């Protein structure tokens, strides 16, 4: 069994990471999940949260706001709609994301209201997790 697998984090605008990792912790829509080499093939959607990878080269954290992850035997690909390295995440960006989520919540129709509220809550929780406060 391989100790590491190929991990790619891509957003529409660029490829953020492409490295060999031992495990990836993914903020899945239904809860966090950790993928390790030879994980069963899975596709999951993401909620806003922190994605952390650890491998021979150390561990790294990324902030993702949504999208999906494709886990195959030998590789894991995360397609994030919007992703930042944790170090690049600032209060300003978080505020903007939360503001966007809130305005989406206000504009949401009755049936999508719960989803939109969850999105706002996820954003706030994500901010707390990385040590930024939601205004």
């Amino acid at each position, binding site marked *: 069994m391989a100790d590491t697998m190929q991990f790619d984090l*891509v957003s529409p*605008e*660029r*490829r953020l990471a492409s490295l060999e990792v031992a495990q990836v912790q993914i903020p899945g829509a239904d809860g966090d999940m950790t993928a390790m080499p030879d994980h069963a*093939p899975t*596709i*999951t*959607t993401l909620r806003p949260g922190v994605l952390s990878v650890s491998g021979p080269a150390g561990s790294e954290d990324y902030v993702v706001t949504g999208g999906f992850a494709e886990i*195959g035997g030998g590789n894991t690909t995360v397609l994030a709609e919007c992703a930042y390295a944790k170090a690049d995440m600032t209060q300003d960006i978080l505020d903007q994301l939360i503001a966007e989520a809130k305005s989406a919540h206000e504009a949401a129709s009755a049936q999508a209201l719960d989803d939109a509220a969850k999105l706002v809550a996820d954003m706030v929780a994500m901010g707390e997790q990385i040590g930024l406060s939601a205004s």
Partner: protein
Amino acid sequence: MPSLKDLKNRISSVKSTRKITKAMQMVAAAKLRRAQEAAEASRPYTERFNAVLGGLAAAAGGSDNAPKLLSGTGSDQVHLLVVMTAERGLCGGFNTNISKLTRTKAAELMAAGKTVKILTVGKKGRDAIKRDLGDHFVGHVDLTEVKRVGYENARDIAADVLSRFDAGEFDVATIFYSKFVNVVSQIPTAQQIIPASFEDEGAGEATLYDYEPSEDAILADLLPRGVATQIFAALLENAASEQGARMSAMDNATRNAGDMIDKLTIEFNRSRQAVITNELIEIISGAEAL
């Protein structure tokens, strides 16, 4: 016969025109490189995305309760044409070609008795088709202030299109943009985005995935993103095409200006020579008359 002064003015004016077109060409070349890099950077995302979505769609496509974005509304009466062009001119046939394709398609659809609605992205295309198809406009997206198209722009356009779709305003959506092949060749393209169409490529790629939450939920989540992704890819192709078209147009213009300067300079020298000869003849014949 223009006077020497006229010619001189003319030459200096063409020279400054050449300077401008040369500068524009170089700016376009720099921007083209950036646009190509952006298009390149988005490719991994788009490819993976389409592969996954294609696999999901193939699995769910047959069922009756497939999302409307995938299966369509069951009719194809109302067509929405999303026409994406540049915000600026002076880029050769770029805007004209997209507008021409749109006009042809719109005429075809109308001849078949369909209703056509048009959403324009980019000022130039809007101006170009306003005269023929102005009655069909339902909206316009202004990107004048946007220096570099980002995913947010695509998402906003997609949100606009999707809300219209949810409101039942149209059945089929097609985007018009220009595919970048190389600097001298950009192909105006029409691509249907709603209902989503995928080429059957995943025959060999039959990995069985676990889906979390459920297959349907993921599909419902991904399809709207798919629209945004396709629009984003088209916007990037368009940006690269625009700069490519502008670059070759300005290259031509610079060369033409150079040719024109050469021609005018020869004319200028000839008429100067003619003036000198004339003066000489006058002096000599004056001297002989004495």
